[in-house]
């Protein structure tokens, strides 16, 4: 039985991922440190957000797509420190009540823009084929708004900005079966977004900005890693309850 530590985020990956790959291209297996690199695609179909501060209603739809590269430093096959750098885009739809007490429908989509994240994940307990891991991650992006409509009418968005950030912690368990390492994890997510620099109303109380916040903080991750233990692994993950999302990632060990 072994002990380690770790921390994690949006797509969390397998709690056992620090020890999935035992052999790399260049760095000897006996070395206490190794490097991995790869791709991560994260597709959030509904982030289950609600309006905060200016309004109180639900955000009817909040989808987000992120394509990014991952760079990971692995220590002792127990601890992963990683950075995620790529681009992200958000689509959101919500309703608000204007000064005449009429319900208005607003929709918005940002342009793809640079997003980044940093995270840590560690194996706390390892026994036979079981791994218990803990993780955390912080991610953020600051996007320009591509278009915005209110009741189907286009509104000027020259200087409009949409900024989101999130941090997340999780605790999960993984079990290794042949090529597969399925896992299940519980996560705590704090996600915030703000739409501002507008010259028209987009929220209750005739506000020209709107804050969003996730409705449910606690959710669950289900996923599976596929690997022979050499050079490469592929990971697929679904997130439910506090988000509806799927992510696909693949990493090479150097």
């Amino acid at each position, binding site marked *: 039985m072994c002990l380690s530590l770790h921390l994690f985020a949006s797509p969390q990956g397998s709690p056992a991922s620090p020890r999935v790959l035992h052999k790399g291209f260049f760095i000897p297996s006996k070395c206490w440190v190794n490097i991995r690199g790869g791709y991560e695609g994260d597709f959030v179909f509904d982030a289950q957000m609600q309006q905060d501060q200016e309004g109180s209603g639900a955000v009817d739809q909040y989808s987000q797509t992120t394509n990014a590269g991952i760079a990971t430093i692995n220590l002792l096959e127990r601890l992963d420190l990683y950075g995620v750098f790529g681009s992200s885009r958000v689509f959101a739809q919500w309703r608000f009540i204007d000064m005449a007490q009429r*319900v208005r429908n607003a929709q918005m989509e940002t342009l793809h823009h640079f997003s980044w994240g940093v995270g840590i994940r560690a194996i706390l307990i390892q026994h036979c084929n079981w791994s218990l891991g803990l993780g955390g991650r912080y991610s953020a992006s600051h996007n320009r708004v591509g278009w915005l409509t209110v009741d189907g009418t286009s509104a000027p968005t020259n200087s409009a900005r949409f900024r989101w950030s999130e941090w997340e912690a999780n605790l999960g368990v993984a079990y290794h079966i042949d090529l597969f390492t399925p896992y299940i994890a519980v996560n705590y997510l704090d996600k915030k977004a703000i739409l501002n620099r507008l010259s028209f109303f987009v929220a209750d109380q005739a506000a020209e900005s709107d804050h969003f916040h996730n409705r449910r903080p606690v959710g669950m991750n289900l996923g599976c890693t596929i690997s022979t233990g050499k050079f490469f692994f592929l990971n697929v993950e679904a997130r439910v309850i506090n988000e509806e999302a799927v992510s696909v990632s693949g990493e090479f060990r150097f």
Partner: protein
Amino acid sequence: MGVSGLLFSAPIDNPLMPYLLEEGFCIEDTSWTSPQCGFSLDYLIQKRLRSCHSSHSLQLRKATIKGVSEIGVVIWNIKERFNIQINVGSGQFSWNWLQHNTRVAGSARNGLLWGCDAKWTVLNIRDTFLSLDAQLGGWDWMDGPSTVNGMASGAHSQSLLRYWQIGGAVTQKIAMFAPYLGFAVNRTRMKVWNLPTGTGRMHARHEIGPFGGCSLSTGNRFLLNLEWRGWFEEGLSLAAHVRF
């Protein structure tokens, strides 16, 4: 107050599922029965609908639905030939159609997705298998906001759907891969109401289509399945099963 319809189908998965997992965690592989459980993530890219006879007067056109669902599965396996399974889950769908040159759109969520599924491996010649699948299910208590030409309507629309589906597929087992290809017949009815444009009922525009995919397993405790569905709907699903 109005009503209209929507439509949907569940992932079929490999009809050879009863045969693929030969060993489990606790129950011996010589046992005639074993429980399994699983999870499925289904991405419905597009399903086309048309109005039922009772809604023809509304002139609903170009209706489509798309969305994502997450489904938990409990399975009773019998003699590695039959699977009887119960599916329970939730999801979020968006729908839209044209009605007298007016675009009506909305979402359906917060509901319960349920279904019963039976899979039967009929025959095999060496590593080639013929299997059948039958499903029955529905989608209840769905509601969500709606818009008419992009303008919000006051009340939440509500929707309901029922479907049945029969399919058959040929699976070839190649080491740890089990690719399959088959055809399915799907009948679905859907209803959406609480719309300002009137009540509508719809059913699927296409009822027959191919499906195919590949299962990945060593036969030992765990299985992963990826599937595509076409023509009667465009959809992708990813599923994982564990045998106890």
